[in-house]
């Protein structure tokens, strides 16, 4: 009762988001003086459950054939069923597609309140308060949740992981009999070919914007640079809207929120809606012809020059340094 519950999808594994979520949950449970419970959902959950069992106080694997692959309605039923039994004080999730899709509905079914995209969770008396960016990253809001449980999806990658214990807690297999809800059904799942790492997990990102002038430089200039750095490629809204690269590459308020160690912005002006997607980046560096481009206000270091001249030189210099 009144525990903190974290919900994880087995398919994503113990990635940086799962680690951040576990860390956030561990610290919130400590602050509230309650237990941390984890729900792991999906097939092949054992590996993830074992990792989480070194951090949480109890782990429940939602074990049912109907839950092996994510289906929105059925998965929501299962999470609501398990959460109701646990009577949690708070339910925390990451900000992946499925968690964002389910969190508000889960809150509704539990009679609680949801808030998303949290970068900090605080205890304020009886209430929980969540910090999040608003107005496209131009402002920060502190949101107080008025109902219990608080269901919060987090920018999990920006939360510090928790220290793992040597010993594991109890891992329970909940045998569920959730009736599959077939009103909607995922019939096809397609991964974009963009290497093995997800953009949100990438430690180095090379991103291109409108200033590239067309789709070709992504392939001829940015791709080789990204390979050299072991980086993932990304793009601004302008580049995606123009159809130069797939929409899944888009970083910003209307795209992905990323948290790399290094974000190299090439020919990106740095509109606030773009910056909203990279506020958790450790270091931002930029190449831009305009010294007054807003991107430089967020940069640790930068260079004012035409990317067409800089990038080939940069590749050569980096290759030298790597030798």
């Amino acid at each position: 009762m009144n525990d903190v519950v974290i919900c994880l999808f087995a398919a994503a594994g113990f990635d940086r988001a799962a680690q951040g979520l576990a860390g956030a949950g561990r610290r919130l449970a400590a602050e509230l003086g309650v237990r941390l419970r984890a729900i792991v959902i999906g097939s092949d959950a054992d590996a993830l459950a074992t990792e989480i069992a070194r951090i949480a106080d109890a782990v429940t694997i939602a074990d049912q054939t109907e839950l092996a692959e994510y289906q929105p309605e059925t998965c929501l039923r299962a999470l609501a069923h398990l959460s109701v039994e646990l009577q949690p004080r708070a339910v925390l999730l990451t900000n992946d597609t499925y968690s964002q899709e389910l969190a508000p509905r889960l809150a509704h079914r539990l009679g609680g309140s949801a808030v998303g995209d949290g970068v900090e969770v605080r205890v304020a008396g009886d209430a929980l308060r969540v910090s999040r960016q608003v107005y496209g990253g131009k402002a920060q809001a502190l949101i107080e949740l008025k109902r219990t449980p608080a269901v919060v999806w987090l920018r999990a990658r920006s939360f510090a992981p928790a220290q793992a214990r040597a010993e594991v807690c109890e891992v329970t297999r909940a045998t569920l009999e959730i009736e599959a809800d077939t009103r909607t059904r995922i019939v096809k799942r397609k991964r974009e070919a963009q290497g093995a790492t997800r953009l949100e997990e990438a430690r180095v990102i090379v991103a291109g914007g409108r200033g590239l002038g067309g789709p070709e430089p992504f392939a001829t200039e940015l791709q080789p640079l990204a390979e050299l750095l072991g980086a993932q490629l990304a793009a601004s809204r302008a580049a995606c809207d123009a159809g130069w690269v797939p929409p899944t590459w888009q970083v910003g308020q209307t795209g992905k929120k990323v948290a790399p160690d290094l974000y190299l912005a090439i020919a990106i002006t740095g509109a606030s809606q773009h910056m909203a997607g990279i506020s958790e980046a450790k270091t931002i560096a930029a190449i831009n012809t305009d010294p007054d481009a807003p991107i430089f206000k967020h940069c640790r270091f930068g260079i004012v020059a035409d990317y067409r001249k800089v990038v080939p030189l940069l590749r050569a210099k980096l290759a030298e340094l790597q030798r």
Partner: protein
Amino acid sequence: MNILVCLKQILDPEIPVRDFRVDPIKREAERGAAALVTNIFCENALETALQFRERTNDARITVLSYGAPTAEDALRKALAMKADAAALVVNDGHAHPDSLTTARVLAAATRKLGPFDLIMCGREAGDWGAGQTGALLAEELGLPCVAFVDRLEQTDGKLRLKRQTDTGWEVLEAAPPVVVTITNDEHNVPRIPKVRDVIMSYRQPLTQWTLDDLEINADEARAGNTYYEVVDLFIPQRETRCEFVAGDTLDEKVAAFAQRISEITSAL
């Protein structure tokens, strides 16, 4: 197919950072000289609906908004884009109600306007960006919900929905009625209505209700803060100072730039 598209009018999110101020007492952005616009994802939703109607020749599109009296302009623009009907629930309570309040108001209006086979919302709004209205509306109506959809088709009485995920995309089959939240892609960039159609739209009928016209707890809706409440709003101070790499020639500058990058990546 009877389609409902929910629209939110917001402060223009493209307002430059230097002109952006917040009122810490009212805990909202100052209007300043900024325009009021329709939230982009809501327009993406309307555009997706309009294209669906063009492909199938079998759809009626109603647009609905809960907002200030000025939200009428967002609905008129939607009519100019060729939505078939429009309804506004005038908000005379909390100017920025929480997501559940909005969902409950929209649900009550939806029951009055419906039934609908497909209800569409933007995935989030460019002001508060809570990203909850569509999902909570689905719960209020007892309907399934699919998020981040960017394309829809009709096959054998079912809807085929393509949606974006973290890693790529998925196709879902849905039996109407269903709620979807719409995200942007290159296919649903909203059309620009003709000036003539915008003028004509002001002669078209538009249903207007107050909260008292709906079967809803109007006092609670006016309070608008029983789900969550914004207790603080501020503009964060930025401490980063950009170091422009030094060097007499571009070659030297790029060498310094490469050095800085290499220091970070070699430590990973």
